[in-house]
């Protein structure tokens, strides 16, 4: 399965697709990017006259790249259809402003009995950590 096949299989579309590109993907992890376009609707309200990307959307971006893309890759031969987000433990270190490009790097901790748990990090273009932590989901 190549990178484009994985993008095609993602169950999201605009305005809730937070994956632009998969840079690399293996059995052990994935690296991908997303640009937060300044015209995204939520910037109008988060915050008033002070657009900053909501932390929940940073987690969503980490999950779409770090869990869902990797989950699609790992479960290719298993005829599984759905992935459910089951837990997150994330710390935030830096804000993300409109038009920033972020890179998500996810390392598989384990994939067993349908549960994928990963150590995930998001960095900005200066390679500074934006947020780090662990995410898990069930692939069924």
């Amino acid at each position, binding site marked *: 399965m190549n990178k484009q096949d994985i993008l095609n299989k993602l169950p999201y579309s605009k305005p809730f697709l937070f994956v632009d590109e998969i840079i690399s993907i293996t059995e052990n992890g994935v690296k991908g990017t997303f640009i937060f376009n300044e015209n995204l609707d939520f910037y109008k309200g988060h915050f008033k006259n002070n657009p900053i990307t909501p932390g929940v959307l940073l987690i969503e971006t980490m999950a779409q790249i770090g869990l869902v893309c990797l989950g699609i890759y790992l479960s290719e031969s298993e005829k599984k259809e759905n992935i459910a987000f*089951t*837990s997150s433990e994330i710390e935030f270190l830096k804000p993300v402003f409109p038009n920033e490009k972020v890179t998500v790097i996810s390392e598989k901790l*384990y994939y*067993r*009995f*349908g*549960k994928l748990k990963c150590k995930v990090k998001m960095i900005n273009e200066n390679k500074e950590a934006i947020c780090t932590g662990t995410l*898990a*989901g*069930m692939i069924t």
Partner: protein
Amino acid sequence: MTKEAIIEKLKPIVQPFVKNEEAFKNLTDTTDFITDLNINSANLVDIVLDIEEAFHIEIDNESMEKMLNVENTVAIIQKKLAAQ
């Protein structure tokens, strides 16, 4: 290993994931991890991984699917220990 000894070793593994303390206090053979203790399926995976480590056994997919209550879990642990 006796059933009682297995249950004693099992309790601290299960406890961090329990959402119904009352049912955990009154644990019986038929206590179901999901319906009685309100543990979700993702945490059930962590319990099984912790059981593998604590008992030095390996659980296969088929056994995992049966490990939904205390009685079945103890039986599977005993079977895996006996096979070593």
